[in-house]
């Protein structure tokens, strides 16, 4: 772009928000960089902006304001080199003919229309990118590119430099095809709907009692056409119910699909027999309506949240490759080739893939995936470090002591998997109903048959089959999926996402709740600051502020925010010792901010993480403590829950917070500290074996065992795209205070299902009254069966919606 154009841009964009970054929308602070009359918070954002403008991609900024992402510049250029290795590349690419290749990446950063626009216009940024397409729901990008001119590593590097670094983990190597399981159901529904419409049309003469007046040939033709239309419904659409029914029978169980499949078979056989042999009308219209409505119920059950991953395995936490130190220098090596004894090099923000011993460097490890604790752990040379931790700060070297596949993380996971395999599946309400329902219907049909055998033999067949037809629990089968599906959608609107609708029913059966502490009932990031020591004067506060604003350590940032509003003074000689502290000279004073031993303070006996000491001219002033803050509304949540459920807390932290937690959760809560991940698993298991139905609420990988063992495992996430272990539901932190309402709604939903059952049984009884007498006419069946289904569908939807409204969820 020429200077002239930049001039124009400068004039037209005179309305400018002064302190927010044009690229990413974050506040710029004092260090704003200016270009073209726009301000940027960092050079990374500015670089992306220049790059996009040079390639005529300025539209990116006009679609949304501040759409960009801060690119991570701390990384080395060659860190994606492993992607070009044959073993890795061929497993990642969807298609490759040596010249053109296609690849699909998961890019969780995609969040707005600007992102879609930019990622779909990448071909203008690099000529070797042929095309790209975004799937916004699943946060995925597929790219076709010329692999000869643009190796995979450079393609990923390009995306990363724009801030859209793809999430490439071990689990991507054996990629599955995109989920297309919805397709057969849609097709079955379409076929059933098509046939239903035409069959009803062809049944009109019969509905209106015109079969006597029209020519017999035409009326016969109509009936034959109906059979023809019933064939695809029976042999294609209804397979959806035959398959589960057969598999249940094979396991000598009865589920809701068994009586339904029975009803469908009887309807089809009886109708074909009636029409072909008896010149009768048949029940083809009832058959089609039944299958169609039941398939609609299946559709309700199918709600999935594409952007959330409920089933993450440990493999998605680990990188594909790591930098290995060899005699020739460093080389990126696939994780699968790492063996005990290898020395690996980890940079800022990289995940430790295997257990090992720290050889050199200042390790500051964030084990939040593993433990849920957000405070970083320091390690010195010779210390053990564990797989799953994330290095924050400078580069470290680690000697691998156990292969990645034998790490502590993996053992934890396998322990969890073993528990899940043993976990009994709970029979759903509908299946428990059909357990009694099916034998009852069969008995009633036989009794009817026996009665008519003695009363009037010509009616045996028709009366017995009529009983089976009318008793087909269509409405019964619809009640559960519709009510649970509605509840699931309403909860999703309130930012509580459950994996499938059955989870709603399981939540309703809960008797006890188990919470994790850090990150679950406390807010990660937000802290309640307090200060111990001699209060600093205004000028001293300004000096501390001037020093900490130069560091990006999380505690420095928190301290900076706490002191925000102070005047920034000029500083000299700033230096930062990673993991220990920072120092600088302000005016004539030397300021040190950091850990107790860094400032030479006597640490308080109950030394806690998240404490920052301050000294001025080597005289210790005191310390700031950033204790984790409980989630807003936690107290109300606990008060409401404790009325109906037993509350427990299992935390990996030390006892230091016991009194604070007890204050908030109330005296009835059962508190356990210093719990290892397998302790948590055991705790939940014991509760379950004692007959409790447990909801475990957690957030980190350390809760994964408990989450899987619990009747329902819920994870609390700060934002929907963040990393969470596998669970049954994801609760957005913003909706945490509504947890009691969600549980109450699950209860209400089960009540609604029970009422619907009663309603549909009422219809069934009316139908049976006619059926046992052999009086069930095709028209009566065609009215009664859809009417009962529609009543139940309407009732379930409206009643669930009403309860959600009354509980204040919407």
């Amino acid at each position, binding site marked *: *772009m020429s200077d002239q*154009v930049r001039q124009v841009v400068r004039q037209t964009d005179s309305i400018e928000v002064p302190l927010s970054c044009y690229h990413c929308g974050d506040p710029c602070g004092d260090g704003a960089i200016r270009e073209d009359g726009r301000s940027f918070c960092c050079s990374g954002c500015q670089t992306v902006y220049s790059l996009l403008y040079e390639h*005529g991609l*300025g*539209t990116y900024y006009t*679609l949304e304001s501040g759409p960009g992402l801060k690119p991570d510049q701390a990384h080395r250029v060659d860190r994606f080199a492993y992607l070009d290795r044959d073993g890795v590349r061929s497993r990642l690419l969807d298609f490759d003919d040596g010249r053109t290749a296609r690849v699909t990446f998961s890019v969780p950063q995609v969040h707005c*229309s600007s992102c*879609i*626009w930019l990622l*779909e*216009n990448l071909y*203008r940024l690099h000529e070797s990118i042929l095309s790209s397409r*975004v*799937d*916004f*729901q*699943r946060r995925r990008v597929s790219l076709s590119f010329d692999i000869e001119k643009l190796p995979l590593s450079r393609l990923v590097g390009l995306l990363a430099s724009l801030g859209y670094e793809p999430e490439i983990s071990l689990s991507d190597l054996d990629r599955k095809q*995109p989920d*297309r399981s*919805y*397709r057969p159901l*849609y*097709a079955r529904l*379409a*076929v059933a709907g*098509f046939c239903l*419409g*035409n069959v009803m049309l*062809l049944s009109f003469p019969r509905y209106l009692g015109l079969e006597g007046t*029209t*020519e017999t040939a*035409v009326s016969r*033709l109509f009936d034959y*056409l109906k059979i023809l239309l019933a064939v695809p419904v029976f042999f294609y659409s209804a397979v959806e119910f035959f398959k589960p029914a057969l598999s249940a029978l094979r396991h000598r169980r009865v589920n809701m699909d068994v009586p339904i499949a029975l009803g469908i078979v009887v309807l089809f056989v009886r109708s074909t027999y009636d029409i072909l042999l008896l010149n009768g009308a048949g029940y083809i219209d009832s058959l089609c309506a039944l299958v169609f409505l039941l398939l609609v119920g299946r559709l309700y059950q199918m709600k999935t949240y594409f952007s959330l991953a409920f089933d993450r395995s440990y493999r998605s936490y680990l990188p594909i490759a790591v930098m290995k130190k060899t005699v020739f220098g460093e080389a990126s090596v696939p994780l699968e080739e790492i063996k005990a004894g290898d020395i690996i090099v980890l940079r800022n923000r990289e995940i430790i893939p295997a257990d090992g011993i720290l050889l050199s460097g200042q390790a500051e490890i964030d084990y939040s995936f593993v433990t849920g604790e957000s405070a970083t752990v320091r390690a010195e040379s010779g210390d053990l470090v564990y797989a799953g931790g994330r290095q924050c700060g400078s580069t470290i070297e680690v000697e691998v002591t156990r292969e990645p596949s034998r790490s502590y993380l993996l053992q934890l996971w396998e322990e969890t998997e073993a528990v899940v395999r043993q976990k009994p599946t709970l029979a759903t309400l509908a299946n428990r109903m059909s357990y009694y329902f099916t034998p009852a219907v069969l008995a009633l049909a036989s009794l009817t048959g026996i009665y008519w055998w003695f009363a009037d033999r010509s009616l045996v067949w028709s009366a017995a089959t009529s009983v089976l037809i009318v008793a087909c629990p269509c409405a019964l089968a619809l009640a559960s999926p519709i009510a649970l599906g509605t509840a699931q959608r309403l909860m999703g609107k309130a930012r509580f996402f459950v994996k499938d609708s059955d989870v709603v029913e399981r939540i309703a059966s809960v008797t006890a709740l188990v919470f994790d502490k850090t990150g679950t009932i406390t807010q990660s990031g937000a802290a309640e600051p307090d200060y111990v020591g001699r209060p600093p004067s205004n000028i001293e506060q300004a000096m501390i502020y001037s020093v900490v604003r130069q560091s990006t350590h999380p505690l420095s940032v928190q301290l900076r925010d706490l002191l925000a509003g102070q005047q920034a003074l000029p500083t000299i000689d700033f230096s930062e010792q990673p993991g220990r502290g920072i120092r600088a000279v302000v005016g004539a004073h030397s300021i040190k901010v950091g850990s107790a031993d860094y400032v030479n303070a006597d640490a308080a006996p109950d030394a806690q993480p998240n404490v920052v000491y301050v000294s001025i001219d080597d005289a210790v002033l005191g310390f700031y403590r950033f204790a984790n803050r409980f989630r807003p509304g936690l107290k109300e949540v606990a008060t409401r829950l404790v009325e109906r459920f037993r509350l427990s807390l299992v935390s990996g932290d030390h006892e230091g917070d016991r009194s604070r937690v007890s204050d908030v959760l109330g005296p009835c809560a059962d508190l356990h500290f210093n719990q290892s991940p397998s302790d948590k698993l055991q705790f939940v298991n014991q509760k379950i074996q004692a007959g409790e139905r447990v909801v475990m609420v957690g957030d980190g990988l350390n809760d994964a065992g408990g989450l899987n063992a619990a009747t329902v495992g819920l994870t609390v996430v700060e934002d929907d795209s963040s990393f969470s272990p596998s669970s049954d539901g994801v609760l957005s932190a913003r909706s945490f205070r509504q947890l009691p309402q969600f549980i109450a709604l699950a209860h209400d939903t089960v009540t609604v299902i029970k009422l619907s059952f009663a309603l549909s049984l009422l219809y069934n009884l009316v139908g049976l009254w006619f059926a046992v007498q052999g009086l069930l006419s095709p028209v009566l069946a065609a009215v009664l069966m859809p009417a009962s289904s529609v009543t139940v569908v309407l009732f379930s939807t409206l009643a669930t919606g009403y309860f959600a409204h009354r509980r204040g969820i919407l």
Partner: protein
Amino acid sequence: MDVMLVLIGFSLAVAAGFLGAFIWALKHGQYDDLRTPAIRILFESSADRQKDKKE
């Protein structure tokens, strides 16, 4: 009444045609992504973008 037969055959054929079209669309992934196209259609056309580039 014979005309009825023709009409019914015709109406079934038309309806079956639409059913076939739906299943074709389904098989070709038209329902795989229901959100992105709704956003994508609001972007300016590629002709306009070409102009934008020349400036």
